[in-house]
């Protein structure tokens, strides 16, 4: 009898944890079937390639956001950081190409600077949240408008990357069958982040702080450093997403990242990471990202108005949060 008692507890623990993952998995399965049934070109090679390359920037941004949400925080400025990094990369590329003559060196420098910006943006939110104790949603909201302005000030109109510099971004188009190099890079990064989450002090700290910040603090964990690091990582990932978009579209636009914030949060939540923190992991995020990507791509193929996407993702996020939220925190007052 003890054995069945044990296994039922274990089963309960396992199933509660992975409900969202099962749902996402089933959703992907069903969606693929439905979209293919509606328009068989959904599964042809060209579209798959397209879908997967679209997924790369999303995947990389969701990686960083996962840590932030695991911390029971949020970064609404992710899309704006992405936009700024995006326009910075292209602007720097043209400046440095002129100055240095070597497009590869110029590209490297531009990428690094864009990532540094991302880290800087993340650092600001991290400090506001950890040191000034500002709620992350308002800190990131305020910064979102700041970065939006910055992007528009750098360039009000889209800039294209001149053809001569295309060599620097040719790596983006390397393909292995339908799978592009950027996607592989993004998945590897998530894999690396997963290791970070489960096998490093930082990862354990994130789970602890997100699970119960007060207890983590009293146990002697360095809560501030954990928060700052997570936001910095998110900033870097958001910037990386901006770089990917620049390479993919061979141009930049100051509003390119705007729509991504919603998609990235949706991906993380669909991956089973709860907004309340301390629950979820990066492997789930992979699943969530694919779900979002398939919905997006599928709706395009099938001819659904792009306007429906906003509604769909808005509802999907709410549904996923409702499922994953830990409502047993009775004493907590939700605002």
């Amino acid at each position: 009898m003890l054995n069945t008692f044990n296994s039922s507890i274990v089963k309960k623990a396992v199933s509660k944890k992975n409900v969202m993952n099962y749902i996402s998995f089933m959703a992907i399965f069903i969606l693929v079937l439905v979209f293919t049934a509606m328009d068989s070109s959904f599964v042809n090679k060209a579209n798959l390639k397209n879908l997967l390359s679209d997924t790369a920037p999303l995947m990389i941004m969701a990686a960083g956001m996962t840590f932030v949400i695991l911390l029971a925080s949020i970064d609404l400025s992710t899309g704006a950081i992405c936009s700024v990094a995006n326009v910075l990369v292209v602007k720097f590329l043209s400046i440095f190409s002129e100055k240095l003559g070597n497009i590869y060196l110029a590209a490297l420098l531009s990428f690094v600077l864009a990532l540094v910006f991302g880290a800087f943006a993340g650092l600001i939110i991290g400090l506001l949240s950890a040191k000034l104790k500002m709620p992350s949603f308002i800190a990131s909201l305020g910064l979102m408008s700041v970065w939006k302005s910055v992007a528009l000030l750098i360039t009000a109109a889209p800039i294209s990357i001149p053809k001569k510099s295309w060599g620097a971004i040719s790596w983006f188009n390397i393909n292995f069958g339908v799978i592009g190099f950027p996607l592989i890079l993004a998945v590897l990064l998530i894999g690396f982040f997963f290791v970070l989450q489960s096998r490093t002090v930082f990862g354990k700290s994130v789970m602890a702080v997100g699970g119960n910040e007060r207890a983590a603090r009293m146990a002697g964990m360095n809560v501030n450093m954990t928060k700052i690091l997570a936001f910095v990582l998110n900033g870097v990932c958001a910037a990386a997403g901006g770089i990917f978009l620049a390479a993919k579209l061979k141009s930049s636009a100051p509003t390119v990242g705007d729509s991504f914030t919603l998609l990235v949060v949706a991906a993380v939540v669909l991956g089973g990471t709860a907004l309340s923190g301390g629950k979820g992991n990066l492997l789930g995020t992979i699943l969530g990202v694919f779900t979002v990507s398939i919905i997006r791509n599928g709706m395009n193929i099938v001819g659904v108005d792009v306007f429906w996407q906003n509604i769909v993702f808005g509802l999907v996020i709410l549904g996923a949060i409702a499922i994953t939220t830990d409502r047993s925190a009775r004493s907590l007052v939700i605002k």
Partner: protein
Amino acid sequence: MEKKLLFKASNISKIFAGTRALKGVDLEVYEGEVVGLIGENGAGKSTLLKIIIGVQPQSGGEMTMFEKPYEPRTPRDANSAGIGMVFQEQSLIVNLTVGQNVFFGHEKDFRQFGFVNWGKMYKATETALANVSCSHIPARKKVLDLNFATRQMVEIAKVVNLTRSSGHEHCLILLDEPTSVLNETEVQQLFVEIRKLTAQGHSIVFVSHRLDEILSISDRVYVYKDGENAGNMPTADATEERLYEMMVGHSTTTEYYKLDQQRKPEPDVVLDVRGLGLKGVFKNVSFELHKGEILGIVGVVGSGKEDICSVICGDEHPSFGELYVKGEKRRYFSPAQALRDGVLMIPKERMEEGIISGLSINDNIALSNIRLLRSGPFLSTKKMVKQTQDWIKRLRIKTIGKDELLASLSGGNQQKVVFARALCSQSDILILNHPTRGVDVGAKEEIYGLIREMVKQGKSVILLGDTLDECISMSNRVIVMCDGLVTGVFDAPVENKPSQVSVVSLMM
């Protein structure tokens, strides 16, 4: 003149998730009298009051009001029945005015054409304030602008008004530690008001840890101990000594607290507290903690003992004074900094501050020493698992495995996990804040043994005990705090433990 029975509670019991807070207490209140209610922490006074005012239901027993059955489901029910309470925590809304607070929730009595006639309400407020001799308080002033003593009087005016509007001629008013924010003069003013109320036939239940106040204002005194009646008597027959004796429990067996394992501390001073103070909470606290010593701190709610611990462990920043840890002067801004010097606290509120219920035993035990479990840049799963399994065995933690989430463990086992974490953390100055709270008897005994073991290994402990008995029996020395000051220090060697009575007298 025969006084009529106003309120009666019989055989009230209350069980919270396994612990019996009240084991069958009685209370009788007659019209026009002040009943004092005293007892140690955990005696059940606040629990009973909350039951009477309808915040929580009793698990057993009955209550009557005006000799009719009384079963409130909400505080509003209690108010309608003629019972009101001034809680220990302020329940005024500071950005609203006095009048708006007094009539909060009852605005519809002043409603005209859909909006509230504040003018009418303020007039009624002035009457309510006059009834408790507080006409000097402006009814239209924001509570924010009042001092605490005035706020307290507003609370009392509000409660008196509420109960009287119930239409009953005589009402029952419960006051839970009403004098904690008042100075001498203000306390006397409060007493004058109380006597006026009783002269009109209303009754008061007065809970306070200050025996001198109880003896001064009450007509009869009830003493509760460990959730049970310890006796009651007319105040005229009571003396402080008698009351102290009734309040404390009998000392439990020496084996329970492993007295035979109590050792003499070494002479080295590991922690030196000088003139520590936290504005408005405690002041002028100085003591030394020696290596291998268990130093107990006792005091009632509001004594400041828990805040001292918060300051020492780094959670709060002191306003005055100095802290020397192992000879070095220190200022801590976070528990992480304190941990680096080997100072760690096991917090009182296990669920809110002690454990991370969504994580496994494995993860919880590693919280404090995570940096030591690295091998290279990554964590060594092997080291972590070994550590966890070691401690599960050593502390006999009842679990199905190291990956079980803390949420499914019992209170006692959760506490063992917290202890395991503290012991792995390589801290040697441990502050144990109510370490046996909410833990079953068997686990308690194991924890006592654990504490004795810890000091044997050269660690030093500051102990805030769950009961007075526990603290005195476990400690080498006991510091007594009352209202933010140290009122006494007792040596507590095995052969000559101070009596609970003598300690309690300094706590109040």
